[in-house]
């Protein structure tokens, strides 16, 4: 199977690989997939209080297309508002990276990772504002 040039480019020069410190505020983390299935994506988004995605990091265990899909979405979401990012469809990842049908699940996983990261951020933000006392106590 031949890979598209864009998949190869993201695989060889992945963008925004890494992790934000776990306790960093304003970071939402989405981990999707499962090791037994051969794909696990971790996507972290740094989101401002008013819902702007300022930065992104990823780590992926998976095939080249899974790595490329996650690398691409870190570029795609940066500078977008969260409501806008929530509307990103896997099909746009398939199109950009020229993924063959057997690799569509990689794009689905990447879409899920965005949603999971934003949901996590909202949850954490909600908890933080709902229980400022708790947070202070923990901190």
């Amino acid at each position, binding site marked *: 199977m031949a*890979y598209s040039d864009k998949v*190869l480019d993201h*695989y060889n020069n*992945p963008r925004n*690989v890494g*992790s934000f410190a776990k306790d960093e505020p304003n970071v939402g983390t989405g*981990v*999707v*997939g*499962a*090791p*037994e*299935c*051969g*794909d*696990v*994506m*971790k996507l972290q988004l740094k989101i401002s209080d008013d819902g702007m995605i300022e930065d992104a990091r990823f*780590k*992926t*265990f*998976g*095939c*080249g*297309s*899974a*790595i490329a899909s996650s690398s691409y979405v870190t570029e795609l979401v940066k500078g977008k508002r969260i409501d806008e990012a929530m509307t990103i469809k896997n099909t746009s990842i398939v199109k950009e990276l020229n993924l063959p049908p*057997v690799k569509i699940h990689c794009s689905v*996983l990447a879409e*899920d990772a965005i949603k*999971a990261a934003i949901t996590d951020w909202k949850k954490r933000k909600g908890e933080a504002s709902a229980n400022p006392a708790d947070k202070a106590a923990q901190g």
Partner: protein
Amino acid sequence: MVKLPIYMDNHATTRTDSRVIDAMMPFFCEKFGNAASRNHSFGWEAEEGVDKARNQIAALVNAKPKEIIFTSGATESDNLALKGVVEFNKDKGSHVITCVTEHKAILDSCRALERQGKAIVTYLPVDKYGMVDPDDVRKAITDKTVLITIMFANNEIGTIHPIAEIGRIAKEKGIIFHSDATQGVGKVPVDVEKCGIDLMSMSAHKIYGPKGVGALYVRSKGPRVRLTPVMDGGGHERGMRSGTLNVTGIVGLGAACEIAAAEMPAEARKLIELRDKLHAGIFERLDEVYLNGHPTERLPGNLNVSFAYVEGESLLMGIHDIAVSSGSACTSATLEPSYVIRALGVDEELAHSSIRFGLGRFNTEEEVDFVTERVSKEVKRLREMSPLYEMAKEGIDLKSVQWKGE
């Protein structure tokens, strides 16, 4: 400097040895006759070539020349052995014993027989090294068992089964014993008498011969094995496999066997040395790498390793100038990770992370050194990118994690 790309996938196929090609050449243009033409010199020359090959093959596996039936390859040999024996013996019984790590040519033939209601098949498990327990074979035998089929050596993990012991059990119980020896013949000593093998599949292209030709050994005495042909026609090959003989291919298979017989001891020594060097080099440079297959009872050129936290296909992509293969789901048509690796009882994640190195006649020490460095470097790069590696380093037990998307 090594020449790239490096071919290290010799369980998939091998480069045809130039000596084999030299032996084949005259049979394309000068001696092009049909081996079945009995009444002119063209036919006689071709038949001579085929007879010589039969002798060369028989000598390698300690068979009689007439016991060698030519086929298009090991897949056909497997199909003929299973379907032919089951059909011929349908009045005696319909039980077949095999094991879970057999090649698809065996497993899918079994499934086909089951589907057609022609056989009931017992699929024996293997131990953590991929080996069948002969005792399990003995226990699985019933009065309806007509065939036991266990491969000589596994194509993915290289494990060599205790074939002689299984052969003894089969003999004792009077059951026909077939072995798919595609990966064993020419690599390790294979002796149909010592191993009590009644039927045996082999292929030319795994032993530096041409593709599209193979053979089925069919015992002629003690017991005389009979089977119903799968291919009907002109009654070639003692009626067991009709079809004009692939003379050039057969001559190539013969030549490949003769070379293998002469060079096996030295070649096996060299391959074990290279394989062990590759093994040691990778294990020195990386943590959390696991050997798949038997530590000692394995094919000389085989090394199958799981690189934890790195998915196999992505690793293949990173070492694209090295030809190896992976048990990763992403490299298979079925999107399932290797059933052979899973049968060993290893975690599914490790099955996704397995790479098979297949060393062969034309590999060099320089190539082994290059592959060691290249693979280790790429595994490290991919681990830096792997969330699983990060979690493991943080002390998180990956098995305790509730994964989304399971």
